[in-house]
Structures are given as C-alpha cells and as structure tokens.
C-alpha cells in the first residue's frame, strides 16, 4: 500500500468524523497560534526596546547620581542624591584625564509650564551645554541650536521637541515665537526632529532645551548639581575604556570606591541587556504556558486516536484478514494522527499570523513573526501528531485479526 494511498485513506477517515476531527485539530491550533503570538510579542517588545535605546545615541555613557540614605536609614533610588556637579562634568571633559571621551553634556532637568498666549503646556526643561545635540544624536527640523556664546550668557532662548512644538503652536512655525515661563520670555530658536521613541513614559519629543544658566534662572536653583551627565565615547571600541576612566575619575573626586559609589554609569548595552532580560522572562513564561496548551492538544490527538482504534477494531481485523501487515496498519494510524497534527499546525500558523496583523490594532505592542518560530511550530505540530500517534498505532497493529473480527 503506497504512502499516497495511506494518506488518502487517512483523509477519508478524518472526513468521516468531521466534528470530532475539528475539535481535535482545534487543540493543536490554539497551542500553535499561542506559541507563535507569545514569541512574536516577546520579540516585538525586544525590538521596540532596542530601537528606543538606539535612539539614545550610540557610544553613550549615562552617568547618574547615586542613591541617598536619610537619617532613618531609608535609601532612595538612583538619582535621588545630588552628588554630580558641573565640576564633575568639566573634569570628565578634560582630554588628559578621560582621553576616550569625545564630548560631555551635563544636564539639569525640571518640570515647567510653557505659555504661548492662552495655550500652556507642562514639559521637562533640560538645561545643558551645546554638546548635548551631538551627544544625544539629535537633529533640528527647523531653526538652529543655541551657540556657545548664548550658552555662556544664559540667553533667553529655547529649542523645543517636536511634540512640545505642536502642542504649543499647532501647525504654525514655532521658530521666532515667544513663550513665557513664570513670566520670563524665551524665544524659540529651533525645533528638534522627532526621535520617534519614548523611554519609560517620558517622551524624547516633549521637552524644552535651554542653556544651563537660563535653566537655573528660570527654576531659581542656585545649586551646582546636575541630574545626568551624558558622555559620548570617541568610538564604539573606546566605550569600555571611557567607562573605566569616568568611573575611576568620579570615584577619585568623590572619595569613594567602586563598591560604595555615589553614582552609577549605564551604557546602551547594559540598558539593552536589562530590558531584554525582562522581556525574555516574560517570553519564556508565556511561551511555557503556550507550550503546555500545545502539549494538551497533543494529548487530545492521542485520546481521539485511541478512541478511533477501539471504535474501528472490526475494521482493523478485517483489513488484517484481507492481507494488511501490522506495519501497514501502524502506518495508517500514524499517518492519520500526523494529518491531524499537521492540519492543526497549518491552521494554527494561519491564525497566529492573522493575529499578529490584528493584535497591534488593539494593544499598543508590535508582534514580530519569526520564520524560525513558525517553522518550529509546524514541525512541533507534526511531531506531536506522530509522537502521540505512536501508541494508538502500535495498539492497532498489535491486535490479532481473530479478536478484532469477533469483537462486537
């Protein structure tokens, strides 16, 4: 009996129990499509995070202040202390001390309300140097950035993010317009190109960038502290060296060791790593649950095949009496189980791919379909059919023709 012949008779047997076959297949379909979707969601999230971190600028070191410990021993998180100063930033900028740093941008950050006529918008005001634009890999879509001279003077100028611009000015060109902060007039001289990314809720496109002096005047702060120092390494290869140099310098300046450092340095890689680790945990967790549902689907196939063997015991006996060798009977039931598995796999992949197209419209999350995961899912479905078909098939093959024929 040829393989083609076996497949045809398997299809006929599956068709003759339409409802039962489709319910069996449904188990596999749910398993396969949920594996594809969870893996796709995990990979989509991973890609999103990588894009966001890429948007921060490459070769970037982000130096943040360490945590504070108050009198009762409560420790704040990173950035809660004010241990970084402009003097630190100036020291890092010294090419003799940190030769691998190409540019340094100390920044202060505070929340202010910008007012344009009767429109107002609360955004984060970043006070920084002219190096910021390069270090953060940002570009202007209109106007210009402030000059070193304006920065030194603390000139009343502001460069706004794309979202901030549209909130305050709508479709009008913001360049040359005036905004006020607590009554102080600032002239908008430029608009940043949208970075298209947002990290942890704060948009990179909603901010106002002003010279350091301007920022401290507006917020009335006289302290010398900064919230973040961005350091751009000379090249990607120099990143590790720059990291070491900055760490040694700051530890020395603050009189601490690296173990009790009052600052932390993050690199793009470490951010990607942290984010990916979180994503991986979720993907493994969800994928595990999906895998279990796939297993349950496989057990469904075995169950139905066992029922089928019992139900068709007389047919098996007759086929054996007419000359079907045990091998042929085993093959017939294996092929039938595989067909169930494969059908479930194909439909499951279709549902998964369809879900990947539809799902992003309902949840704010991209779903990346990987060819590898899809192929693996199909192979798994087929393997489930074969694997869980082996036992029922060998039971059918072992039946003796007399007993099978006699059974009622």
């Amino acid at each position, binding site marked *: 009996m040829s393989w083609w012949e076996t497949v045809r008779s398997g299809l006929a047997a599956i068709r003759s129990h339409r409802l039962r076959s489709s319910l069996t297949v449904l188990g596999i379909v749910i398993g396969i499509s949920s594996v594809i979707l969870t893996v796709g969601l995990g990979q989509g999230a991973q890609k999103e995070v990588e894009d966001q971190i890429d948007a921060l600028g490459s070769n970037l070191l982000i130096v943040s202040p360490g945590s504070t410990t108050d009198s009762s021993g409560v420790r704040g998180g990173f950035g809660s202390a004010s241990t970084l100063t402009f003097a630190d930033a100036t020291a890092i900028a010294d090419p003799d001390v940190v030769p691998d740093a190409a540019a340094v941008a100390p920044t202060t950050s505070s929340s202010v309300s910008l007012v344009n006529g009767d429109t107002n918008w609360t955004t984060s005001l970043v006070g920084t140097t002219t190096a910021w634009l390069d270090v953060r890999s940002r570009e202007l879509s209109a106007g210009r950035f402030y000059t070193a001279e304006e920065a030194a003077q603390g000139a009343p100028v502001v460069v706004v993010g794309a979202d901030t611009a549209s909130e305050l000015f709508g479709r009008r060109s913001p360049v040359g317009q005036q905004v006020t902060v607590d009554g102080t007039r600032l002239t908008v001289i430029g608009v940043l190109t949208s970075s298209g990314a947002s990290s942890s809720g704060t948009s990179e496109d909603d901010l106002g960038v002003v010279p350091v002096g301007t920022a401290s005047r507006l917020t009335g702060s006289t302290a010398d502290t900064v919230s973040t120092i961005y350091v751009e390494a000379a090249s990607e290869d120099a990143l590790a060296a720059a990291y070491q140099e900055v760490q040694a310098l700051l530890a020395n300046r603050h009189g601490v060791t690296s173990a009790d450092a009052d600052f932390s340095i993050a690199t793009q890689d470490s951010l990607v790593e942290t984010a990916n680790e979180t994503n991986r945990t979720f993907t493994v967790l969800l994928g595990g649950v999906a895998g279990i549902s796939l297993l349950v689907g496989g057990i469904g196939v075995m169950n139905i095949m066992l029922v089928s063997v019992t139900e068709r015991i007389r047919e098996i006996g007759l*086929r054996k009496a007419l*000359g079907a*060798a*045990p091998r042929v009977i085993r093959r017939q039931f294996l092929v039938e189980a595989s067909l169930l598995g494969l059908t479930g796999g194909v439909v499951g992949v279709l549902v998964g791919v369809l879900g990947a197209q539809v799902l992003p419209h309902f949840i704010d999350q991209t779903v990346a379909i990987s060819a590898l995961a899809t192929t693996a899912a199909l192979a798994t479905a087929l393997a489930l059919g074969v694997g869980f078909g082996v036992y029922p098939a060998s039971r059918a093959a072992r039946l003796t023709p*007399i007993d099978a*024929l006699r059974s009622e």
Partner: protein
Amino acid sequence: MSTIIELAGVRKTYRSGSVEFEALRGIDTSVRAGEYVAVIGPSGSGKSTLMNLLGCLDVPTEGCYVLAGDDTSSLDEAALAAIRNRRIGFVFQQFHLLASMTALRNVELPLVYAGVSRAERRDRAAAALAKVGLADRLDHRPGELSGGQQQRVAVARALVTEPALLLADEPTGNLDSRSTHDVLGLFDELHAAGRTIVLITHEPDVAARAERNLVIDDGLITEDRLTTGVGPR
C-alpha cells in the same frame, strides 16, 4: 489433482491463566484443488478454531499446515498477512464490509494491500462484482444493499485476488432463506467453475450442498464422508 490443504497432526491449545483448553486434538486431513468441503459440528466442537487455522488468522500449537505448497507453521504475522492476501478469500457471517466505502472500493481492498495499481484494481473489482451479479451496484454503499447482496459483495471481494482457497465461515448465518438460497447457488456455480471452497457451518442442509463433509467434534474429525449432493453439480 494438486493438494491445496494439507493438515498433519494439528493441535491447538488455548491457555487462560493456569487453565489449558485443547480446542483441536490432532487433525489430519487434506483438501484437493476444486473440492467443495463443508466442515460441520456443534458449537464448541473446534470448528471455529479450525477455520482460524485454515485462514492463517492463527497458527497451530503443534503440527503442520501446508497451504498451496507453503508451510505456514513457522511464519510471522507479516508473512501470514501476505499469505492471507494472496492465497485465501474470506467470506464472513457478518459480511464485514466497510460501511463508508462503495461496493467497488470494498472489493478493491485486498488488491490495495497486494499493491495493484489503481486502474487495474478498478477493472478487476468491477469484473468480480459482475461475476456475482452486481454489475449495476458498483457505487452503492453496504447500507444501500440487502443482506444477500452484501454477502455477494463479500464473495466478490474474496474472489478478486484469484485465491487458491475460498474460506466461508457460516456465510448464510445472517441471511433469510431466499438470500441463503441465492448465496449457496453462487457457491455451486463457483464450485462448478473449479474453485476450492471450504465452508464452515452448523446447518446440515447447508453442508449437504457440498460434495464432502468433515464432521468435527471435541477437537477431532469424527467423520469424513462424500455427500450425494442436492445442489446442481
């Protein structure tokens, strides 16, 4: 004439736990080509066991069974399947047709396992159905046929491989008297055409249609007689 069946010292013992039951206690007989033999005996006499052995559905515990020149005593399940496929045509009391298939597909089934091509299968199955008078019922399913017709489909299926032996196990047990007459008439025709037929029955008037009766009781052949024959010869 050549010998189709040769049984020598055949015993069959069934074991169930520690209890042994000897269903056949030494059978010696032979059947020549073209003979029409009826095996008769009451239930429990061992005739069903004999039928299973003759049909290669089971192997003897002891003794030797040669079917059309092949010694079957030492064969494994796969080899026995091949022997059944090529040498034996079965007709069962319960017809054993597959309800989901047409008459034609049912008759094709042994040829499927013999590896015959689809076109040839179709032709041979149609010819076999025509021989039993069902040329106009090829595409009917068993449910759409009468009991007698179903048994004739089963006879066509038994003949389609041109087997050396036609083995019928109570072929009229489930049929009314008209259909019984019908099917036995068909057997007479096949006998007249030179087929070797072994028929197992417990009904004396069915056995009387054969040319030779083997009476079996308590696992032994107690009588081997030629009948006068009531059917057309």
